[in-house]
């Protein structure tokens, strides 16, 4: 990490852990083989790939053959929505998502609407929770997929995934899987990009059929993601070609990236419990401090049921982009849901979904902690943030 700078945007991306880099290095120039080659170079690469698959599967309690490596969580999510839609459209064309999904789910769903699919977008409460009863009510005969984000990338709210998964599972006839000639079913997918590696996940216990995750959010390299696909799931590929990854994702396999992802999973598994406790403490100190030291500030999301590393606020009479740049000038990296910080000039759909008005969403600030966040970093933020807010409010025509 760059010295003298405080990085509090771990939800955007994380630095690669040096242990991960070390694990990856041999796979660039020395063990560079193509996993599809028959010779020893290929075998070596193939072995690394399969060992990596086991390590990634292990962190979510899945069988290794359920893991498909992709290039990103965006790709995984696209594959789920489009792949399930096209493989199961004979049964029905109805898909249920929440209104606070990541843009890659929102946009894939929007595109599917143009292809004749029906999308239900479930409302959330003021904390961002999906009500499992709403899922139950929304499922109908034509429903083929329910996709709910595990933990919000913006406000950190952790959904009752196990309960929602059970609703989908209970809806399905207790017959064999479609691949074995059983009845078609409602698949349950969760986008676990922000939660994987941070909080415990067990795909069996949580009744998950499909799960997306990303390496670069958990101290692995960028350009690698994965999708868990439960055995027997009817799904079509998006990328057709040489038949890699069980035919679901053709492309020469990114071995160094995948080895890094696997190492990152191994480290997260070892350190998760302690790290979650440490970050929760720092997060709560940050939240408490900001709410105490600054007037007219509100916490977005639930105070308790949120990711250990996520804090999100909105400040009255302040615009988020200005706030982020002021913080950056003082060496603190943060993020905002303000429209001015986007290419679309629209405030965050997540903040609007939890009931914030556009002008409130403009004043939002997300601080996300991580492996190299120290208590002194939090102290520094608490020291300088009140002054920055004061300064911005002083030049605002709407100050009290």
């Amino acid at each position, binding site marked *: 990490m760059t010295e003298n700078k405080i990085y509090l945007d771990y939800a955007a991306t994380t630095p690669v852990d040096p242990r991960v880099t070390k694990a990856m290095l041999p796979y660039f120039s020395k063990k560079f083989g193509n996993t599809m080659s028959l010779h020893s170079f290929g075998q070596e690469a193939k072995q690394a790939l399969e060992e990596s698959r086991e390590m990634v599967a292990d962190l979510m309690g899945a069988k290794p053959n359920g893991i498909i490596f992709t290039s990103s969580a965006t790709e995984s999510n696209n594959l789920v929505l489009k792949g399930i839609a096209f493989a199961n459209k004979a049964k029905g064309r109805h898909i249920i998502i929440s209104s606070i999904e990541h843009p890659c789910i929102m946009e894939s769903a929007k595109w599917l609407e143009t292809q004749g699919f029906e999308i239900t977008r479930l409302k959330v409460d003021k904390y961002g929770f999906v009500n499992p009863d709403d899922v139950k009510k929304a499922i109908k005969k034509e429903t083929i997929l329910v996709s709910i984000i595990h933990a919000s990338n913006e406000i950190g709210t952790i959904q009752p995934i196990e309960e929602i998964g059970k609703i989908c599972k209970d809806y399905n006839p207790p017959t064999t899987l479609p691949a074995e000639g059983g009845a078609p079913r409602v698949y349950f997918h969760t986008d676990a990009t922000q939660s994987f590696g941070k909080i415990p996940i067990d795909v069996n216990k949580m009744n998950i059929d499909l799960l997306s995750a990303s390496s670069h959010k958990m101290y692995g390299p960028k350009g690698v993601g994965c999708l868990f696909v439960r055995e027997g799931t009817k799904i079509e590929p998006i990328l057709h070609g040489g038949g890699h990854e069980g035919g679901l994702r053709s492309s020469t396999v990114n071995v160094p990236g995948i080895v890094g992802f696997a190492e990152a999973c191994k480290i997260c598994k070892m350190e998760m419990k302690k790290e979650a406790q440490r970050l929760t403490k720092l997060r709560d100190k940050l939240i408490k401090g900001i709410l105490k030291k600054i007037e007219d500030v509100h916490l977005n999301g639930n105070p308790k049921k949120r990711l250990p590393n996520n804090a999100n606020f909105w400040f009255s009479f302040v*615009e988020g982009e*200005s706030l982020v*740049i002021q913080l950056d000038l003082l060496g603190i990296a943060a993020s905002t849901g303000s429209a*001015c910080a986007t290419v679309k000039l629209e405030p965050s759909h997540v903040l609007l979904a939890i009931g914030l008005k*556009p*002008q409130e969403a403009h004043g939002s600030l997300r601080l996300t902690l991580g492996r190299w966040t120290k208590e002194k970093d939090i102290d520094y933020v608490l020291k300088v943030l009140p002054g920055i807010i004061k300064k911005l409010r002083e*030049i605002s*025509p*709407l100050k009290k």
Partner: protein
Amino acid sequence: MKIYSKEIIKHFKNPKNVGKIKDPDGVGEAGNLICGDVMKLYLKIGKNKEGEKIIKDIKFETLGCVVAIANTSLLTTMIKGKKLEDALKIEKEDLIKRLGQPLPPIKIHCSILAVDALKEAIYDYYLKNKIPIPQELKKEHQGIIKTREEIEKKYKGFTIFEEEILRK
């Protein structure tokens, strides 16, 4: 790559002419809370040696993004002491040029707002003092009002909140 030029950051870090003017001769407002930018300009009008009307003092308040704040600050430094008729000639392109970098298209809006606020302030001054308003300025004023009404229509309900705050 830096997102913003030195000039933008300079004005953003230390904005010039921030605040209100007591008993201003003209006040102009532009933007709205829903879009995230609200600007207010206060003018004090005086005369130069030749007896022509000049902007004797100017202050501003902005709630908005980096470019919005930098723009308004820059604008005030450009027109302080200038003749009213010259101030009216300032266009958004003049601001953009001075900011020293091509602005991303979505930020050009911020430059328009600063110029709008200035035109509204001068319009307000003319109106209050029963000075004949140039045709061009009248047109511009109507355009600004129209845009505001369109946004209000689009976001009905949200604007009520805005008015409440402004009244405080």
